[in-house]
């Protein structure tokens, strides 16, 4: 706890110093803090929304995109880790798509979804999906594959069926991988949504907020407040997953 405070204090002191010495042409931390608190509940005049509203817009996109990703990546990861044939079939496909950064998909996503109603939103959810899918898949697969062979043999000695082995041995073994996959997936999804919002018109969302503030100009405090909100939410999401991990993995 003391080190946590110290680490935050270091950032603030460096910030103050850099601004006061004149290395950084930025507002001072307490000015940003004031603006941040003001914008938390009061709408910012240009877009007419407060930070909570922008955060909710971004969060809805991230949660829909990443949950769809988890919904597909977790079962697929488990099957791929468990059965080499399933892995061989899917892995080439995955290795082709995986190196493409989600952000590189942005233009194509907007084209693909142009014909749908609510196309911007769909494209953004799709990009989050891509960002969250691969880390979750790989992490789940790795843990499923690393299932202790001795435990599988134990289950076989008790005449367990394949379904039981999957349910009782392979899936529980994969849970730590699933959780860290969810954690990384949410983190990457959160980063990609902010970038996707910056590139296209979303009407709301933290990335959009930052971009509009930049375009209108003279709103460095707003920009940093938006960034602080991104950081804060990212941090909280991580903490929530870690909390869930502690509860779920009491046996570790």
């Amino acid at each position, binding site marked *: 706890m003391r080190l946590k405070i110290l680490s935050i204090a270091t950032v603030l002191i460096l910030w103050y110093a850099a601004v006061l010495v004149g290395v950084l042409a930025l507002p001072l931390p307490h000015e940003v803090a004031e603006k941040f608190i003001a914008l938390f509940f009061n709408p910012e005049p240009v877009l007419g929304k407060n930070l909570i509203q922008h955060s909710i817009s971004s969060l809805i996109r991230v949660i829909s995109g990443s949950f769809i990703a988890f919904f597909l990546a977790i079962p697929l990861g488990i099957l791929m880790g468990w059965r080499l044939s399933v892995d061989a079939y899917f892995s080439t496909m995955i290795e082709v798509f995986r190196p493409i950064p989600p952000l590189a998909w942005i233009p194509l996503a907007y084209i693909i979804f142009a014909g749908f109603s609510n196309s911007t939103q769909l494209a953004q959810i799709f990009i989050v999906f891509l960002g969250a899918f691969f880390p979750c898949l790989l992490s789940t697969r790795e843990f499923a594959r690393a299932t202790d062979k*001795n*435990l599988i*043999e*134990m*289950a*076989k*000695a*008790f*005449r*367990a*069926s394949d379904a*039981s082995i999957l349910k*009782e*041995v392979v899936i*529980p073994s994969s*849970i730590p991988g699933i959780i860290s996959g969810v954690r990384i997936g949410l983190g990457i999804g959160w980063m990609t949504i902010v970038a996707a919002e910056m590139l296209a018109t979303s009407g709301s969302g933290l990335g959009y907020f930052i971009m509009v503030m930049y375009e209108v100009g003279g709103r460095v405090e707003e920009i940093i407040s938006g960034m602080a909100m991104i950081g804060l939410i990212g941090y909280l999401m991580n903490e929530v997953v870690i909390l869930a991990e502690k509860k779920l*993995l*009491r*046996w*570790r």
Partner: protein
Amino acid sequence: MKGFTEIMEISISKSFNGFKVIENISFRVNPGEFVCVVGKSGCGKTTLLRIIAGLEEYEGEIKLDTERIGFVFQDDRLLPWKTALENVLFPIGIEKKIEKGDVELAKKILKLVGLEGFEGYYPKELSGGMRQRVGLARAIIIQPDILLMDEPFASLDELTRQKMQEELIQLWERDRKTVIFVTHSIDEAVFLATRIVVLTPRPSKVAGEVKIDLPRPRDRTSSEFNLYKRKVLNLLRLKSES
């Protein structure tokens, strides 16, 4: 109980990648017997048990009069995410929905192996000896007709080990399950067995059998006990020199 005919008769050999591990092991087991299999490390004892349990291919023949086999492993092989109680219930859970009666039974068995009060503990919270007892409880909850045990006490300290041996015998005397118990400790074998099957080094064959006619509880320091130990040791030595 299966009457007087043998519960098992085997005659097998086994190679791994063309490399002969078991030349020809053949022996019989009668119902209610406590058979110890001794042999040098690497002679194929674990392989033998895995073959009996149906986990490994083999050449030859196994006549087994039952499907209900309990296995206690060399390492404990407990599921780390299940509590002691849940681990004991594992073999039941894979067959059907666990009912209240099953939980009662599992608790009773845990009490029997001396783990009353530890039902809710995770494997990492138990000592090595306790984990082996959970493994034993898990094997006997399915009420097997034959219990395969692979050096279950090998990793325990001497005192714990002797205590576990005594408890195992008490358990066995209670319901006279057929047991095949693998060990490389001659002392352990003479203490536990009604009959000892001695294996030669790889590629292994049966070097000989020794019937142990000692009253229980057995005294490890008695001269008869040591006579038996020497007998077994001679069988082991003889074959490894030739």
